[in-house]
């Protein structure tokens, strides 16, 4: 099976605080991984480390079989790893149209199926607001824009950090529907979300973090049924 990401023994620090204590993470093509853990257990740090944003890091990160442990964030993105960050990262001073097209590109292998039109078809709301500024959108619309923008870079993997945070229930349903569509189209995903039932139901495998260590990992269904899960998530 070919891996998109193979990270081994990842460590990360913010200043003097040691956040990740040796985590392994593998993501294969087309696979969905759920990343669980309470707040402050290192989920976002793990993501930002894999993306190259955390400078104080150690361990090996292989992307598509090549060693990218020292790669810069834009190089990692160019290999086909897209990021939908917590807080959405929409550019408030760019229009919806500009947010979508500014970084659009075919994949490294030339795939070009997530066209501008297809993204607007997937998110009809964005079409109505196409010339509004990103800062004028509602939270749900910003989330759709952030996901649409990621899709237009034709990634092999999309990392979704708290994609449903602070959204109304109907919009949350809409976002999960789109995540399902993304999975169905063969793009791998790494999902972080408060609603762990939803995450596990929508993942192939899962990883549970506790104080910067991975304490459970395996088939999502098996983890969902493991009695230890509740204690790790504090529920």
């Amino acid at each position, binding site marked *: 099976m070919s891996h998109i990401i193979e990270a081994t023994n990842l460590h990360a620090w913010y200043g003097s605080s040691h956040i990740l204590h040796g985590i392994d993470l593998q993501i294969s093509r087309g696979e969905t991984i759920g990343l669980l853990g309470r707040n402050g257990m290192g989920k976002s740090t793990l993501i930002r480390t894999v993306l190259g944003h955390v400078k104080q890091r150690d361990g090996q990160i292989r992307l598509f079989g090549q060693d990218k442990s020292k790669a810069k964030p834009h190089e990692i*993105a160019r290999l086909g790893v897209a*990021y939908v*960050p917590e807080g959405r990262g929409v*550019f408030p001073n760019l229009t919806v149209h500009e947010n979508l097209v500014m970084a659009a590109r075919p994949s490294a292998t030339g795939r070009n199926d997530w066209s501008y039109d297809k993204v607007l078809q997937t998110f009809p709301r964005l079409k109505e607001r196409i010339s509004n500024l990103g800062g004028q959108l509602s939270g749900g619309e910003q989330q759709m824009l952030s996901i649409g923008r990621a899709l237009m870079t034709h990634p092999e993997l999309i990392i979704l950090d708290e994609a449903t945070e602070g959204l109304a229930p109907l919009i949350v349903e809409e976002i999960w529907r789109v995540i399902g569509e993304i999975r169905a189209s063969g793009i791998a995903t790494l999902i972080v979300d408060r609603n762990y039932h939803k995450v596990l139901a929508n993942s192939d495998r899962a990883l549970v973090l506790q104080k910067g260590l991975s304490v459970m990992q395996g088939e999502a269904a098996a983890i969902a049924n493991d009695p230890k899960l509740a204690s790790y998530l504090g529920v």
Partner: protein
Amino acid sequence: MDLSTFLIQCLNALQYGLLLYLVAMGLTLIFGIMGVINLAHGSFYMIGAYMAFALAPMVGGNFYLTLILGVVLAVVLGYVLEWAFFSYLYDRDHLQQVLMTYGLILVFEELRSILVGDDVHGIQPPELLAGTLPLGDIMTYPVYRLFVSGMCILLALGMYYVFSRTRLGMMIRAGSVNREMVQSLGIDIQFLYRVVFAAGVAIAVLAGMLAAPISSVYPGMGNQVLIICFVVVVIGGIGSIRGAFFAALLIGFVDTFGKVLVPEASGVLAYVLMALILLWKPNGLFKAG
């Protein structure tokens, strides 16, 4: 003031305002968008003026070749400066930016003194543009000033197009609010900012070269223009290319007509204008972008 004097003053104001815009546009890119307080920006203007003087003999006195050579050198200079100094300043606080770039002013002035000397020089406009146009019955207007205005307008339109209509412009604007997200979209923001900085330097150098035949070339000429450019950027709204354009023209008219109508107060008019505008609109006339 009769009509033709008024017309000539209008043309002067326009030309001064447009030239100011050219320098301020570079400052908008570097200060307003990349977030570095660049006190050395006036030095680039000074370097440009001295290039117009010192490079001309190397290209057989051809004014246009001098312009091209100067711009090429300026891009290289900007690229190297960003790599060596400015790339370390983005995340630093304003005090460090001020200290670093003030230091650069001293270095540039000293280098200028060593390489070209401290004399004041006059520069002749090229023959083709040296003439005057009749304006009314007795007044005339120098063709070179019209040429400078035309060049400024062309550059302003070009920059506006790049900034507001191209993907490059979108990336630059996006980078001003969220560098990390821009990187995560696969854009090498370090390289992008290096290019933007080089462009900002090149524009200021070009402005200095264009201004040389009008204002003469003298030590410290950059510092005068620096202060008024910060006024332009602040009045226009920090980070706004459009704002800088209108603010520069406004300053051009206020300064030019101030000198004619209230010569005693002309030195402070631009600053009074800034104070009034900031009282009315504390963030300047336009929003960033």
